[in-house]
């Protein structure tokens, strides 16, 4: 029997944040994880995170992970790794396996931050070698540095499907297509735009019918579906692929909560059954807290904030922090609220409110939110998000797009960010204060094109890689277009390149004028190319070279 004040199960973003806050408050904290390394899924997130500049936005997940590990160590958190927690008895006793033996850990407060698991999708051939979850592919290439396949079909166009597709390209793989059963992508348009301009097709209203092969995947048949999600005969297409990645959602990993007997609610918008919790992240069992994806599928930023909240609350309940706790918790709640604004967050915010309501025993009397109206209409009415490629008309009407007049007068930033997502690093990146996002973090970036001098510092700061630079005055016949380019090899200055549009089609020849990749760009190189003037609003990248 090992005794501690606070035990935290799971050393991902939520668990680490909870442990750090509680330890900083003065509590003796034990952090447990079944893996050999802490960090949960953070170390496979090699992209820059969205969010508030105050909290890790535009920092890559891997680097956030390193910071959290340092903070955990500095704050005196004791960490047990490679130790599976297999049981939770009552609200104070954990059963673990340590050095091959069963052992118990008794804690005054327990915080469950066990995360989520990836959903499966079954279809003929889904057990063949080569069919795997998107997270598996991500783990192999980004952590273990082995590419799981050369030609990939991605099933699911939520943020995970879109991001992992992008990362497969970065690792040297080819993504033959991304398919999505819904009639529009579920993830952010900027994530989709990145792979679209890399030439990856996104087929909405499509699902996988079968994976073919004897020993491993050799091909896959996809099929279009109608509004009732039924396959439309005659629309089958066979794609030559060696890998099928499944990115079809996540389910909270709440076994320990079930075992302990805490209250649950079934909330589809949060990924299924989730433990009820109050404003302090405490479950219906006193002293048992939850944080992160176990309380509903969100993303790493929210997980970290929930972790902080649970850590503060657990420490407070033990007598630490005192008055300070109220204001600290309020700050975290405010940040959590801001992460749940906008069309993407609103659904989660309502679901969370329902969770809190049920926890109070006030089985939500109000009408269930009409999600079809409130959320989807918001994303739809503003822009065409079907596959993430925006039309010139839509862009011209956005507050981040400079006027034709300003464009004609010289170098200026062009912000192609048109969804209300919680993200604001571009604001802080501009030394002239030309970009504003107000009043909330989910408002669209507004470009004051008169203040913008086209320095380009906002380009590498944008986690969505959605800001470009256009200089119509570059030469009498040529326009300069600059764009972020996170692939290898980088083109060389002076070489000819094939310039592509937002859908990856080669539309013109270009010449590389500049390649900028200073440390402060944090591995987001910016390439400037000269192209014929008429393509100024069309060209947004270059065709990637097949050679590594």
């Amino acid at each position, binding site marked *: 029997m090992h005794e501690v004040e606070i035990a935290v199960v799971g050393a991902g973003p939520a668990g680490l944040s909870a442990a750090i806050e509680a330890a900083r408050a003065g509590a003796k904290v034990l952090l447990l994880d*079944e*893996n*050999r390394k802490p960090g949960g899924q953070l170390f496979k997130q*090699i*992209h820059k995170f969205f969010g508030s500049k105050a909290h890790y936005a535009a920092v*890559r997940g891997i680097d956030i992970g390193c910071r959290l590990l340092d903070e955990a160590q500095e704050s005196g958190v004791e960490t047990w790794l490679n130790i599976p927690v297999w049981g939770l008895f009552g609200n104070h006793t954990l059963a673990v396996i340590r050095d091959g033996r069963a052992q118990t850990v008794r804690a005054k407060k327990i915080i469950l931050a066990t995360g989520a*698991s*990836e959903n499966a999708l079954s279809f003929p051939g889904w*057990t*063949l*070698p*080569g*069919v*795997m*979850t998107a*997270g*598996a*592919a991500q*783990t*192999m*290439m*980004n952590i*273990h*540095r*082995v*590419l*799981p396949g*050369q030609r990939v079909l991605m099933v699911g166009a939520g943020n995970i499907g879109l991001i992992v597709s992008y990362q497969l390209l*970065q*690792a*040297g793989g080819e993504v033959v297509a991304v398919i999505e059963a819904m009639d529009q992508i579920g993830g952010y348009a900027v994530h989709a735009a990145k792979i679209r301009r890399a030439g990856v097709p996104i087929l909405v209203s499509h699902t996988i019918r079968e994976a073919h092969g004897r*020993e*491993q995947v050799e091909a896959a048949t996809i099929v279009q579906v109608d509004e009732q999600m039924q396959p439309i005969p005659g629309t089958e297409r066979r794609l030559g692929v060696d890998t099928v990645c499944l990115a079809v959602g996540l389910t909270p990993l709440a076994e320990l909560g079930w075992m302990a007997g805490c209250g649950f609610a079934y909330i589809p918008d949060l990924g299924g059954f989730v433990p009820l919790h109050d404003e302090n992240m405490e479950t219906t069992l006193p002293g048992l807290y939850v944080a992160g994806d176990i309380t509903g599928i969100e993303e790493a930023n929210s997980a970290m904030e929930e972790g902080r909240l649970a850590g503060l609350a657990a420490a407070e309940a033990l007598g630490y922090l005192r008055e300070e706790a109220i204001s600290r918790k309020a700050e975290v709640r405010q940040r959590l609220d801001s992460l749940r604004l906008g069309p993407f967050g609103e659904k989660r915010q309502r679901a969370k409110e329902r969770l809190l309501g049920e926890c109070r025993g006030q089985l939500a009397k109000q009408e269930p939110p009409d999600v079809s109206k409130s959320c989807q209409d918001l994303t739809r009415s503003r822009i065409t998000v079907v596959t993430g490629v925006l039309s010139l008309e839509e862009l011209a009407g956005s507050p981040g797009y400079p006027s034709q007049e300003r464009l004609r007068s010289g170098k200026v930033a062009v912000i192609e960010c048109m969804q209300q997502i919680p993200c604001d690093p571009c604001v802080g990146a501009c030394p002239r204060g030309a970009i504003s996002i107000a009043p909330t973090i989910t408002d669209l970036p507004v470009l004051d094109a008169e203040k913008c001098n086209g320095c380009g510092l906002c380009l590498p700061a944008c986690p969505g890689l959605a800001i470009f630079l256009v200089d119509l005055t570059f030469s009498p016949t040529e326009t300069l277009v600059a764009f972020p380019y*996170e*692939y*290898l090899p980088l083109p060389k200055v002076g070489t000819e390149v094939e310039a592509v549009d937002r859908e990856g089609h080669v539309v013109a020849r270009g010449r590389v004028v500049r390649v900028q990749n200073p440390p402060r760009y944090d*591995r987001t*190189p910016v390439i400037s190319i000269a192209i014929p003037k008429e393509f100024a609003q069309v060209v947004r990248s270059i065709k990637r070279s097949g050679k*590594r």
Partner: protein
Amino acid sequence: MRVVDHPILGKLPEGRTVEITFDGHPLEALEGEPILAALLAHGIQRCRTTVKRREPRWFYCGIGRCTDCVMIVNGIPNVRTCVTTVGAGMKIETQEGLGRWERADA
């Protein structure tokens, strides 16, 4: 295939290598990597076969949850190769069905 150079992660650090055997054939692995990654780097796409139909299986989740990638490691069946680190001289075998324990006294 190993991702030797990467736009974000940089060059693959030159680590020490260890030798393992796969179904009797010697293979080079990188110290500290999971068995599965070493096999994948050598193009091996099968960990086991199923009990009834002897269908091939490889990895599915890659993080130790699904158990699709279990193999016989140093004579012990059902070892999750995606979360088990390679060791010098490690004997890795394709697991047919439930596999077979190697008796220590045999």
